[in-house]
């Protein structure tokens, strides 16, 4: 076990599973289930489960002792990378200045309608009250969503999982979703939607689609953090959870 508690193990494992994902994605000519991030996640978890069996400890222990030290090093870079979205945002300042009212209204009401629909879906599949509460703040980034969930009485680690899966879903299905719902005809809304649904990953995805989409997605990441802080507690109170 001592061989894998070095932080280099986590860095090494992350790189190798992601590279395998990229290779599979290229070989399969872009099959959506072979999105590098999704492959990396499934393979990485599988490897940790196998290691746990080998060392006869729980998977959570292997994760915390062996993977997390290295994983945290990579994870840390998300912070400067998120800050870097200020650059594409600044480059399309014209769009933001011209459309600030549409952006604001779209995000506030978009978040509100989404919360209503999410609650309905969650009730339909039979999630309990704690589960539903953990689903409400998904449009915010993990660092905002987790304390919010805790404040309204949900399970913060379920929310964290949801925020991660949001990114994976956008990464894997983004292209198809944009096509199916004919989103690309309106770059402003597409950018905001991608930022709200996929957070930082959604913004990177939006930036690949175009500079307007990328800029508005960055706005969405910032603004949903504030909008959710204000809306989620009120909404949870109103629907009486």
């Amino acid at each position, binding site marked *: 076990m001592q061989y894998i508690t070095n932080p280099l193990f986590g860095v090494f494992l992350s790189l190798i599973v992601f590279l395998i994902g990229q290779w599979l994605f290229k070989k399969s000519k872009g099959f959506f289930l072979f999105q590098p991030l999704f492959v990396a996640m499934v393979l990485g978890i599988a490897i940790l489960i196998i290691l746990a069996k080998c060392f006869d400890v729980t998977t959570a222990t292997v994760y915390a002792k062996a993977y997390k030290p290295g994983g945290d090093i990579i994870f840390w870079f998300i912070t400067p990378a998120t800050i870097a979205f200020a650059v594409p945002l600044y480059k399309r300042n014209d769009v933001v200045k011209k459309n600030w009212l549409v952006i604001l209204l779209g995000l506030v009401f978009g978040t509100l309608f989404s919360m209503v629909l999410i609650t309905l879906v969650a009730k339909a599949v039979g999630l309990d009250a704690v589960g539903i509460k953990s689903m409400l703040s998904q449009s915010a*980034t993990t660092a905002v969503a987790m304390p919010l969930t805790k404040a309204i009485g949900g399970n913060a680690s379920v929310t964290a999982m949801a925020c991660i899966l949001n990114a994976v879903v956008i990464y894997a299905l983004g292209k198809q979703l944009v096509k199916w719902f004919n989103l690309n005809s309106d770059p402003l809304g597409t950018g905001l939607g991608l930022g709200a649904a996929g957070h930082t990953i959604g913004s990177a995805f939006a930036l690949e689609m175009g500079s307007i989409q990328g800029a508005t997605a960055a706005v969405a990441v910032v603004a949903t953090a504030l909008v959710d802080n204000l809306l989620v507690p009120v909404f949870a109170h109103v629907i009486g959870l």
Partner: protein
Amino acid sequence: MKKEKTKSAPILVQMFIYAAILFVAQIISDLMPKSFPVPTPVIGLVLLYVLLTFHVIKVEWVDSFGSALISLIGFMFVPSGISLAANLKIMQTQGLQLIIVVIASTIILLVVTAYTTRFFSWVISKVTNSQLHVVDHKKVGDVK
């Protein structure tokens, strides 16, 4: 967009700017009240945006390092994905329902936000267009 012949700043200078903004953002984030958490990256994004808008920082001082960071974002989320290994217990009990709701929520957030925005931009363009017609009636007529 203007096309200028500009040299990007050396990579260490760019790193320094990001590090400085991160440091200040961290301090501001710590000062926010517990009931209204705003994470460091969000404050940092706003901070860099404001500094760029007021031309305190030039875009070529932060552009190439920023693009490099953004291009690696898919990889940076690998540890978050693998961190689910620590929560396998929740997945065993309510996993299927949770995954269904999360996938549905992602699609809902994307589509509903996009279409709500489209609706408001339609409304606002209607309102401003009708005002423009009143004010610029002559101009519109001239074009025709």
